C-alpha cells in the first residue's frame, strides 16, 4: 500500500479529461483513414440548438397537378372524395399524392374503359347484390406481406363484410410456412422450387407466385385448417398445375390423374366434410405444380403472392400465356402491387428512374394481359435509417413514392400511399419506438400488430371507395 493519499486523483483525472475533450472538440478535428471517416468529438452538442437539418431534396411537388385530365376529379363517377370537396379552395392539395391517406384513382387513354378501381367496385356491388358468386384479389408483395401479413387482416375484414371463407392461394412450399397463422402448411424437403432467384431452365414457366414446384420421388405437401373463424374448415379446394403429360398425384390417399397441356390447369376437389386436411403426394410423372387454393362457395378472396427480396420488376418475367390462362382458371378482379422495401436499399438515393423503366414495362404487360382487372399500386411504407444520431425517414421514400404514383397515374390504376396512411414523415420511428410496437428494429418491416393495422387501414381505404361509388 502506498502511503500517499490519492483522494484528489479522481478529481484531477476527471477534470483533466474533461478539459482535454472540450479543447479537442473546439479544434474541430476532421480526418479520415482510408474509407473510414472519424467522427468529431463534440462534447457540447447536447447544449446546442440543432441546426436546420432538412433533407436536401425535400420538396417533391405533387406530380401531375396540372395533368388534371388524368386524375379523376372529384364528382366523377369513381371519385376519390365526396362531392363537397369541390367546395374546397384548393382541391388538389387535398388529394396531394404525398399526403392523401385515401385511395387516388386515375384513368389513362390506354385503359379508358377500366380506370382506377371502377371494375373492381362494380364487382363488389354485384357480389353484395348476389349477382355474382366470387370476387378475387391478387395481392403481390415482398417480405412485407410474408406469412400472410397484411393480407390476412384485409381478407378477414373483407370476408366479414362480403362473405367467403378460406385463405385462397397457398404455394406448394414456402420459406415462411411455419410463420403463417392462417393455415397449417407442411411439406417434404424434396420439392424442386424454381423461382425468380434461381434462374429456372427455359422450359419451366413460372407460376403467378413466381414459383413453380417439381416433385421429387414421393414429395408431399399437407394443408390443415386452423382454429380461427372463417379458416377452420376446407370447402372448395383446387390444385393449380402446369402442363401435365398424365402426371399422377394422390390426394388424401385417392389417386388423381392430372391432365391438360395448358400452362395453367386446375383440378377441383370437393372436400368431403370428414377429412379436415389435404395431403397431396406425388405418385407418378413429375408435374409442375403451382399451389392449392382454399375457398368456399362464394364471397371474396385475397391471394397472398409474397416473394422475399424482390422489387416488383421481377413480375416482368411472368409469361403472358401463364397470366392469361391463370385469369381463366382463377379470375382476379383486382391486382394489388405492394413493393418498395427492396427498392430503398440505399436510403439516400433519390433517383428511381432505373426502377420506373422496368416497372412501366411490367405494368404495361399486366394491364394488357388482364384487361378487365383493376389495379391498385400501394406506395412504399415509411422506412427509416440512422442519420447522424437518430432514425429519420429515408430521403428515398418520398422520391420512390413519386415514381410509384406516376406509374399509377400513367397506367390509369388506383394508388394508395401507405407512407401517408402510416402518418407520413417519421411515422416508422413511432411505429418502432411507440408504446405499442408495430414494426421491427430494422425500421422497415411491420410486426403482426403493425401488419394488422396496415390491413385495417387498407380495408378502410377500399371501403371508402366502395361506399362513395354507391352514392348516386
Amino acid at each position, binding site marked *: 500500500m*502506498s502511503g500517499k493519499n*490519492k483522494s484528489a486523483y479522481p478529481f*484531477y*483525472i*476527471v477534470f483533466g479529461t474533461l478539459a482535454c475533450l472540450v479543447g479537442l472538440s473546439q479544434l474541430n478535428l476532421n480526418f479520415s483513414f482510408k474509407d473510414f471517416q472519424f467522427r468529431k468529438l463534440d462534447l457540447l452538442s447536447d*447544449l*446546442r440548438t440543432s441546426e436546420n437539418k432538412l433533407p436536401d431534396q425535400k420538396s417533391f411537388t405533387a406530380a401531375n397537378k396540372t395533368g388534371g385530365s388524368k386524375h379523376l376529379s372529384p364528382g366523377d363517377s369513381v371519385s376519390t372524395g365526396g362531392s363537397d370537396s369541390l367546395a374546397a379552395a384548393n382541391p388538389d392539395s387535398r388529394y396531394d399524392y404525398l399526403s392523401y391517406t385515401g385511395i387516388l384513382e386515375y384513368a389513362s387513354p390506354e385503359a379508358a374503359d377500366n380506370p382506377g378501381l371502377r371494375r373492381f367496385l362494380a364487382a363488389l356491388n354485384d357480389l353484395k347484390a348476389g349477382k355474382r358468386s366470387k370476387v378475387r384479389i391478387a395481392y403481390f408483395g415482398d417480405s412485407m406481406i410474408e406469412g400472410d401479413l397484411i393480407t390476412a387482416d384485409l381478407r378477414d375484414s373483407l370476408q366479414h363484410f362480403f362473405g367467403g371463407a378460406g385463405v385462397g392461394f397457398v404455394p406448394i412450399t414456402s420459406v415462411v410456412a411455419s*410463420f403463417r397463422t392462417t393455415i397449417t402448411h407442411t411439406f417434404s424437403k424434396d420439392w424442386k422450387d424454381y423461382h425468380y432467384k434461381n434462374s429456372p431452365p427455359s422450359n419451366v414457366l413460372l407460376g403467378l407466385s413466381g414459383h413453380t414446384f417439381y416433385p421429387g420421388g414421393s414429395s408431399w405437401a399437407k394443408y390443415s385448417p386452423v382454429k380461427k373463424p372463417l379458416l377452420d374448415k376446407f370447402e372448395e379446394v383446387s390444385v393449380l398445375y402446369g402442363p401435365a403429360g398424365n402426371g399422377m398425384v394422390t390426394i388424401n390417399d385417392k389417386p388423381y390423374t392430372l391432365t391438360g397441356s395448358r400452362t395453367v390447369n386446375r383440378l377441383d376437389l370437393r372436400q368431403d366434410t370428414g377429412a379436415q386436411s389435404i395431403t397431396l403426394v406425388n405418385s407418378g410423372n413429375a408435374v409442375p405444380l403451382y399451389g392449392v387454393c382454399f375457398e368456399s362457395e362464394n364471397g371474396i378472396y385475397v391471394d397472398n403472392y409474397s416473394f422475399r427480396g424482390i422489387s416488383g420488376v421481377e413480375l416482368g418475367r411472368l409469361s403472358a400465356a401463364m397470366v392469361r390462362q391463370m385469369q381463366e382458371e382463377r379470375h382476379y378482379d383486382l391486382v394489388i402491387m405492394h413493393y418498395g422495401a427492396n427498392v430503398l436499399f440505399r436510403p439516400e438515393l433519390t433517383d428511381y428512374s432505373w426502377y420506373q423503366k422496368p416497372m412501366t414495362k411490367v405494368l404495361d404487360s399486366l394491364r394488357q394481359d388482364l384487361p378487365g382487372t383493376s389495379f391498385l399500386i400501394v406506395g412504399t411504407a415509411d422506412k427509416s435509417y440512422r442519420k447522424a444520431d437518430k432514425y429519420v425517414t429515408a430521403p428515398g421514400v418520398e422520391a420512390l413514392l413519386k415514381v410509384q404514383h406516376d406509374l399509377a397515374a400513367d397506367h390509369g390504376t388506383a394508388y394508395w400511399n401507405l407512407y401517408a396512411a402510416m402518418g407520413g414523415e417519421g411515422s416508422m420511428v413511432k411505429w418502432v419506438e411507440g408504446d405499442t410496437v408495430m414494426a421491427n*428494429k430494422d425500421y422497415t418491416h411491420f*410486426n403482426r400488430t403493425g401488419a394488422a393495422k396496415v390491413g385495417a387501414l387498407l380495408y378502410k381505404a377500399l371501403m371508402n371507395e366502395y361506399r362513395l361509388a354507391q352514392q348516386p
Partner: protein
Amino acid sequence: MFNIDKLLSELLYDPANPVLFNSGFFFYFFALFILCYLLASNNKRARVIIYTVFSLYFFYKACGYYVGLVILSAIVDYNLSHWIHRTPSKSTKKTLLVTSIILNIGLLFYFKYTNFFIGIVNDLTAGHIPFLNLILPIGISFYTFENLSYTIDVYREEIEPVNDFMDYLFFLSFFPKLMMGPIVRAADFIPQISQPYRLSSEDIGKGMYLIIAGLFKKIVISDFIYQNFVQYIFDDPSKHTGLECLVGVYGYALVIYCDFSGYSDMALGIARWTGFKIPPNFDSPYQSSNITEFWRRWHISLSSWLRDYLYIPLGGNRKGKVRQYINLALTMLIGGFWHGASWNFIFWGAMHGGALALDKVRIDALKKRKAVFAGWKAALFKVIGILITFHFVCFCWVFFKASTFHDAWSLLHQIAYDFQPEIAMDLYNGYTAVFWVMIMGFILHFLPSKAEFSMETILGRLPVAGSIAVLVIFVWLLVQVKSTQPMIPIYFQF
C-alpha cells in the same frame, strides 16, 4: 449557438432520455459531484450529505418524482428496524419484521406485478379489468431487496441498526448502484461511511480499470453487437435462418453479460474512487463448468441475497434431500420472477432451478462414489462442462430475451429445422465487424484474472497526466464506436 433553455431542460427529468452512466450528461454530473465531494472530504457529515443530494438528484433525473419512494422507504425501514431492535418482545419483533416485508414487497408488487396479475385474472375469467397505467420506478427491485436484507439482519441481530438517518438514506440512494445494482448489503456498506476518504494507488488503478472495462463492455461490445445484429434476430426470428438465430443467441449471451456486468463494473469503479468497496457482482460466468458454479459467478449479489434471505429460511439443505431440491427450484423460480413480470422470466427461473436441483443430484452422486478426476481427464471434463453449461445458459436466454413464448419457440424452430449453414459466408460478409467484436468479447472473457490484475497495477502507477491521456484516447475511441442514442440497458426494467 448555446441555448440556455436547452441547458435547463437537460437538467430536468426526461422520460424519453433516462440518464445512463454512458451518457454525456453523466460525465458533467460526475465532474461536478467529484469536485464538491473532494471539497467536503474532511467532514464525514458534509460528505454524506453531498453524496446523498447528488444521488437523489440522479434518481430524480432517472425516474422523476418516484425519487420520493426511495426517501419514503428509507424513513419507514429506518424506523421499523430501530423499533425491532429496541423491543424486547419476540412476537412484536416478528410482527414488525412482517410489516416491513409486506410493505416492501407490497410496493414492489404494486408497481411491478399488478398488471401481470390483472392480465391473468382477465385471461381466466374473460374479464376486462383495465390495466393500471404504471411506470416501473427505476431501481425499485434493487432497493427493495436492500431494505429487506437490512431489516432482516437487524431482526436476526446480525447488525445494529444505523444511528443516523442520513447514513441510511445515503446507503439506500448511493447513486453508483442505484439503477442496475449490485444489491449492496448494509452490513458491508455502513461501516465504510465513517472511514476517512483516503485512496491508495491500488484504489485509483482498480477504479479506473473498472470504469474503463465497464464502458468498454457496455459500449464497444454489448451495444455494438446488440444494435447491429442481435436485436434484429430477436425482433423477428422467423425472418432469419437457423444459423443467424444461433449466432444471434451466442451474441445475446455476450450482450447481456457485457451490458449488465459492464454497468456493475462502472458502479464498482465509481464507488471505489469515492472510497467505497463493493464486492464484485460477476466473475467471468461463462467460464463455469457446471450450472451451480455459474450461479456463483453470475449476478453474485442477487444469488447470494436469494441464498441468505430465501433459500436458507425455506430450510436450505437442512430438511432432507427432496426439500432441498424443492427449495432450490422455488428460489430460482422466484428469482426469475424478480427479473420481470412475465411467464418468460418465470419459465427461465424454473429452468435454472430445475438444472440446479439436477446438478445437486450429480454432485451428491460424485461425492458418494468419491470420484476424483485428474490430468487430461479432468481437463476434458472441464471443457465439456463449460460447453454444456454455456449452451444450457444460452438456451435459457432465448426465453429470457424473446418477447413472447411464440418468438422463443420460432427461434428454436429455426435453429432446429431451418439451419441453412450454406449462408455462413454471406452472413460473415454482412456482419464482419459484429463477428469480430463477438470473437474479441469471448476471448477477453476467457482471459485469466492475472491479466486483469496487471492492467490494474499499470493504471494505478500512472501519473495524473498519463491517466488523463488514457481516458481521453479511450473516450475518443468510444465516440467512434458509440451509437449516440444510448440504449436502455437490458436490466433496466427489473
